[in-house]
C-alpha cells in the first residue's frame, strides 16, 4: 500500500512537468524545439540578448529604403547591395530542386507552400525545373538536419532550397549543403553562415516591432496598458519583433504585459479576460496574427471597448478588423517570399547575378488600404494571407480558395 502511494506521489509530481514541457515545446505555431531549452528561465535577460542595436538600426532604415525592381512583382524586388556572381552555376535544361522545409504547421507557412507549388508548376512549364523533391521536418531540428543530409547523400539534387527550422541548429547542415558545390538558397529564418548562394527574407522582425509599437504608442498615452500576445520564445524572427516593440513601449511609458500563448485561442481568451478584469486594456499587440480573432472576441464577450490593435495580414484578422471597425494595422511578414527561392534559382541557372542577401519589401497594411486588400482577396479562406503575391500564377484564385495543400 505504501509503495502505491509513493508511486502516486512520484507520478503526480511528474505529470504537471510533462504537461508543462508539452506546452512549451510543441506549439502549432512556428518552430523550434531545439533552441527553446532555456526559455522558461530567463525572460528579461533573454529579450536583452535578442535585442541587437545595429540590426535594429539597419532594419529601421530599411523600412523606408527604395527597392530595386518592379513594384508589381514585390517577390522579385530587393534592396541594392552586394551581388553574387552565379556564372559558374550556369547550365541549360531542366534541373532538380531539393527543398528542406521546416514545416507547414501554421497558416502562414501553408499559404506560402501553396504559392510555391504554383510557382513550381510555372517553372516546370518553362523547362527550368524538372522536379522538386520536398522533405518536411515537422518543426523538428533533428529531422531537418537528417533531411538535408539525405539530400546530400542521395546526390541527385541540382540545387538546394532550405527554410531552416531554427538558426543555430541548422547552420552546420546548411554548410554541408554548400560544400556540395551546388547552389543553396536559404529563405525565411536565417542561419549563422553566409555560404549560401543567397539568403532571402523580408526586412525582418525589428522592422515589424518598430512599425507596430510605433503605431500603438502614437494612439495611446503613457501609462496605458497593452497586452502583448506572443506565440513562443526562442525563435529569432518572433523574438526580434518583441525585442523592438518592448524597447519602444518602454521608451513611451506604455505598460506592456507579455504572454506566451502557443497561438491557442483558449489561452488568448483567458488571458484577455483576466487582463480586462484587472483594468482597462487599451491596446493589443501580437507577434503573429494567428488568434487575433479570439483576442477581439474576449473584448466583445466582456462587453468592453475594443482595443487599438496590431495583428497580421491573415484574412481572419482583416475581416474582423473590417467588421468591428477598430483602429488597427496589419504588419506583414511578406508571404510572397515563398515564390522567390525558385525564381532566384531560375536566375542562377541562367548565370545572372543575384543579391547575396535578398531583402524583400515588408510593408504593413494600414487602414486606408484595408478595403483594397479585402477586395483583392475576396472569397479567400480565413487562414489565407493577403500579401501572398500569387495573383498572376495559374490556378488563381481557386487553388488558394480551396486551400488544397499539396
Amino acid at each position, binding site marked *: 500500500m505504501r509503495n502505491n502511494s509513493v508511486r502516486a506521489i512520484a507520478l503526480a509530481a511528474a505529470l504537471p512537468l510533462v*504537461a*508543462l514541457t508539452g*506546452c512549451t515545446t510543441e506549439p*502549432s505555431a512556428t518552430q523550434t524545439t531545439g533552441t527553446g531549452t532555456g526559455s522558461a528561465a530567463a525572460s528579461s535577460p533573454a529579450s536583452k540578448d535578442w535585442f541587437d542595436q545595429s540590426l535594429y538600426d539597419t532594419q529601421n532604415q530599411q523600412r523606408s529604403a527604395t527597392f530595386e525592381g518592379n513594384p508589381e512583382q514585390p517577390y522579385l524586388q530587393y534592396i541594392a547591395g552586394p551581388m553574387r556572381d552565379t556564372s559558374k552555376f550556369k547550365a541549360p535544361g531542366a534541373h532538380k530542386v531539393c527543398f528542406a522545409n521546416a514545416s507547414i504547421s501554421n497558416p502562414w507557412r501553408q499559404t506560402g507552400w501553396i504559392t510555391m507549388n504554383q510557382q513550381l508548376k510555372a517553372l516546370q512549364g518553362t523547362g527550368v525545373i524538372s522536379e522538386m523533391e520536398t522533405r518536411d521536418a515537422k518543426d523538428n531540428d533533428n529531422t531537418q538536419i537528417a533531411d538535408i543530409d539525405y539530400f546530400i547523400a542521395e546526390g541527385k539534387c541540382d540545387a538546394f532550397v532550405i527554410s531552416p527550422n531554427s538558426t543555430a541548429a541548422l547552420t552546420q547542415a546548411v554548410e554541408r549543403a554548400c560544400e556540395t558545390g551546388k547552389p543553396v538558397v536559404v529563405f525565411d529564418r536565417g542561419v549563422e553562415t553566409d555560404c549560401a548562394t543567397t539568403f532571402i527574407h523580408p526586412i525582418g522582425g525589428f522592422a515589424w516591432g518598430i512599425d507596430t509599437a510605433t503605431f500603438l504608442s502614437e494612439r495611446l498615452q503613457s501609462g496605458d496598458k497593452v497586452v502583448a500576445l506572443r506565440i513562443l520564445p526562442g525563435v529569432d524572427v518572433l523574438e526580434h519583433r518583441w525585442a523592438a516593440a518592448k524597447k519602444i513601449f518602454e521608451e513611451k511609458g506604455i505598460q506592456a504585459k507579455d504572454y506566451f500563448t502557443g497561438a491557442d485561442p*483558449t489561452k488568448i481568451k483567458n488571458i484577455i479576460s483576466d487582463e480586462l478584469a484587472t483594468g482597462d486594456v487599451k491596446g493589443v499587440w501580437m507577434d503573429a496574427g494567428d488568434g487575433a480573432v479570439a483576442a477581439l472576441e474576449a473584448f466583445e464577450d*466582456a462587453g468592453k471597448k475594443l482595443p487599438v490593435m496590431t495583428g497580421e495580414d491573415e484574412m481572419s484578422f482583416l475581416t474582423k478588423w473590417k467588421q468591428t471597425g477598430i483602429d488597427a494595422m496589419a504588419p506583414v511578414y511578406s508571404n510572397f517570399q515563398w515564390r522567390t527561392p525558385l525564381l532566384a534559382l531560375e536566375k542562377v541557372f541562367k548565370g545572372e547575378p543575384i543579391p547575396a542577401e535578398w531583402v524583400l519589401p515588408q510593408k504593413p497594411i494600414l487602414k486606408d488600404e484595408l478595403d483594397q486588400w479585402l477586395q483583392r482577396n475576396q472569397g479567400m479562406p480565413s487562414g489565407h494571407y493577403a500579401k501572398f503575391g500569387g495573383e498572376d500564377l495559374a490556378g488563381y484564385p481557386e487553388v488558394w480558395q480551396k486551400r488544397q495543400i499539396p
Partner: protein
Amino acid sequence: MSTALNSERSAILKQNRASRSERLLRAVRTPGGAVFVLLTGLLATIIVLNPSFGEPGSFIRFVGRTAPIAIAAIGQYFVIVAGEFDLSMGSVVTMQVIVAGNLIRQDDSKVIPVLVLMLVLGAFIGLVNGLITTLLKVPSFIVTLGMMLALLGLVLYWTGGAAQGNPADSFRQIGRGGIQDVPVLDIIPYPVIILTAAAVAGFVLMRRPYGRMLIAVGDNPSAAALAGSRVWWVRTRAFMMSSLSATVAGILLVGYAGVHPSVGRGYEFTAITAVVLGGVVLGGGRGWVLSAAAGAFALESLFTLLNFMGLQATWRDTVQGAIIIIAVAAASRSWQRKRKGASSAAHDEQHQLAAAPTPAEGTEQGGRV
C-alpha cells in the same frame, strides 16, 4: 483480537453518527475536501487582489470558461478512479474541434447532424480504448497514449496543422452564448448549465450501483471480479464517459475560443492534474467526483491568480508547475498519514469513509462551485 476489532467498528459507527459539523470538518481534512479549502483560498486571494473579479457577472463568466476543463476532469475521474488513465483526452478535444470546424462550416442545417456524429465518435473512441485495455490487457497508459498519437496524426493529416476557420455562429453559441438579462448575474453562460448537469449526473452516478462498482474495481479488480462484477465492462464504460466528456469539452471550446489545432493540447494532463489535485488517488479506488471538478476550478483559479499577479511570462509555467507539485504532494501526504495512523482496520475504515458518508458532504461543497 475480536474485541479490538469490535471497538474499531464501534468507533467507526460513532464517527458515522457524528454531528453534521463534525462530519464536515472531517471531510475537509481529507484531500478530497481540502481542495475546496484550497479553491476558496485561491478565490479569496484573487478577489482581494482584484475586487471586480468577485462581481457576480464576471464570476459567472469565470465559471463558464472553466466549465470545459471541469467537465473533462469529471470524465477523467471515472477512468482514474477505476484504476486507469486516459491520455487520449486532449487529442479527442482537438479532433472534435477540427471536426466541427471542417464539417459544419457556415451551414446552420448541419449543426445537429454533426453534433450527433461528434458524440458517436466520442463514444466510439472510448469504446476502443476500453476494449483494448480490458480485453487485450494492454495497460491503459499505452493504449490511450497510442490513441492520442493516432488522433493527433489524423488531425495533422486532415488539416496540415493549421486552422480552417470557425463553424457557424449558431454552433458556437453553445460555448459562447448564454441566457441573457438574468437578474444579478447578468448572464448565465450555457457552459455553466452544461457543467451543472454533468456534475449532477456524475454525482448521482457515483451513488448508484455502477459508481460503487467503479470504485470497487479501481480499488481491487480481482475482488470485484470475484464478487461478480464484469470488470471489463465497468471500465470500458468509464473510458466511454471520459471520451464523451472530452467531446462535450470540445464542443464548448469551439464556441468559446474557435477552431485551432492547438485547442485541447495538454488537456489530458490538465485534467489529470485537476483530478489529482482533487484528492483522487492515481491507481484508483479513492476519491470524489465533485472534488475532481473542484480541482479543475482550483487549477484555473491558480492560472488566473498568476495572471493577476503580473508574473513574467517566461516564469509563469515554472511557478505554476511548482505550486501544483506542492499541492499534490501535500494531498498525497495526508492520505499517507491516514494510512500509517490506522491499523489493519484501516482498509475497512477507508471504505466506509470514502464511499458512504462523504459524497453527501461533496454536494454541499459542490453547490458553492
